[in-house]
């Protein structure tokens, strides 16, 4: 059974069954897009990070705690699907989900560029953390390559896909409640 932490007791409550179902579907789509579609889209030598942008979108719509949980699950499942080192993506996506959610909870999102700005910042944070992790794992991380072939192309690509992905996620989760609608009440 779900823990009964109500809105009266705290700021957050467990999502409803419909919410969970929609978030689960979004999670599956994020993992599939990231592992099967993204590798085929190569622009400027980089691939778009659909999973990251979907985590950012969910966090902007549903808040920091749901964003962090969704980020953790997305990172975990992407790592499972690619049989990559376990936990690194989950850690990075937790941070991204939480910070994007906090931004949505504290800032005024009426300006339309919030998803783009969030995707840009999330990509910057994720790429730096991934590169740092590679460095700690004693793999080669040439700064020039990181900047020219990883960071700049992925910043451009992820910012470009942020608007359509955010709109699609918002459309999909709208029926399951919206953070900004909840805040407005």
């Amino acid at each position, binding site marked *: 059974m779900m823990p009964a932490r109500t809105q009266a007791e705290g700021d957050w409550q467990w999502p409803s069954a419909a919410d969970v179902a929609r978030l689960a579907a979004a999670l599956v789509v994020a993992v599939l897009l*990231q592992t099967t579609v993204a590798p085929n889209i190569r622009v400027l030598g980089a691939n778009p990070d659909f999973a990251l942008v979907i985590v950012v979108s969910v966090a902007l719509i549903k808040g920091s705690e749901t964003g962090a949980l969704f980020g953790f699950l997305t990172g975990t499942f992407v790592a499972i699907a690619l049989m990559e080192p376990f936990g690194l993506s989950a850690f990075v996506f937790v941070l991204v989900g939480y910070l994007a959610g906090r931004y949505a909870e504290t800032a005024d999102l009426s300006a339309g560029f919030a998803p783009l700005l969030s995707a840009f910042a999330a990509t910057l944070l994720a790429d730096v953390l991934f590169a740092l992790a590679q460095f700690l794992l004693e793999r080669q991380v040439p700064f020039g390559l990181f900047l020219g072939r990883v960071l700049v192309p992925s910043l451009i690509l992820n910012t470009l896909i942020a608007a359509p992905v955010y709109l699609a996620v918002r459309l999909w989760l709208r029926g399951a409640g919206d953070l900004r609608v909840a805040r407005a009440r």
Partner: protein
Amino acid sequence: MLTLYFRESDSGPAHAVQGVVLSVVQPLQSGTARVAQPFRNGWNWVSDLFHAKSENGQLRVEVRQLRAGLAQQLTTQDENAQLRAMVSLQKDPLFPKALQMVAARVIARSTSAWYSTVTIDAGSNAGIAVYDAVINGDGLVGRVTKVSPTAAQVTLITDQQSYVDAVVLPGDLKGGAQGILAGSVTGDTTLQYVDKNAKVQVGQYVMTSGTSGRLQSVFARGIPIGQVDSVGRQEVELYQSIAVRPFVDFHKLDVVQVIVR
């Protein structure tokens, strides 16, 4: 009137009256027809449009079906070509014989710049184990680095932690120059630790050597890897640095075969 008309000749009064009336009505008919022509055309256009619309819908369905059929045919052709290439590679006299193969399909790829790995849809249930070599119709793809019952992770030879014992062919009387093919973070592959005095030329073939020092390599001898792209010799260096262009297009990996031991 009817009997009169049929009984009289063509010059009879009934025919004459008909002629006169017709000559009066005909211009009216003609004018009316001319005025009505655009309306008739318009009506026909609208009618044709509706007809064309429904026909368009049918044709769209037909085009969609044909496209789906074509896509399926092209996919089958592509798979057929890949499988033929694999069979042809295995028939090559240099290719190692009596190897047991397991066919698999690439189901996911890492988009990380730091890892060059793919996931295939066959694992330990199919007899695949860690360190098994993976090939496709063009040559060596990589080796298995992780295995689950139904899937396996393949680290490509372009990964920065990939090392393959390789030999440059054709060699001289002493045999081909041997070295270790290493991947890099940029995705380039270089043959390292090649004796500085060994003669290596651009265009020569690079294959798995099958030996790692005195030990047997995890890669069977004779699997094609690529061609020498450039040779760098420096007086101060102990070894030559040889850039190798792999035969495999790693962005188009689909069907592969795992050499199980």
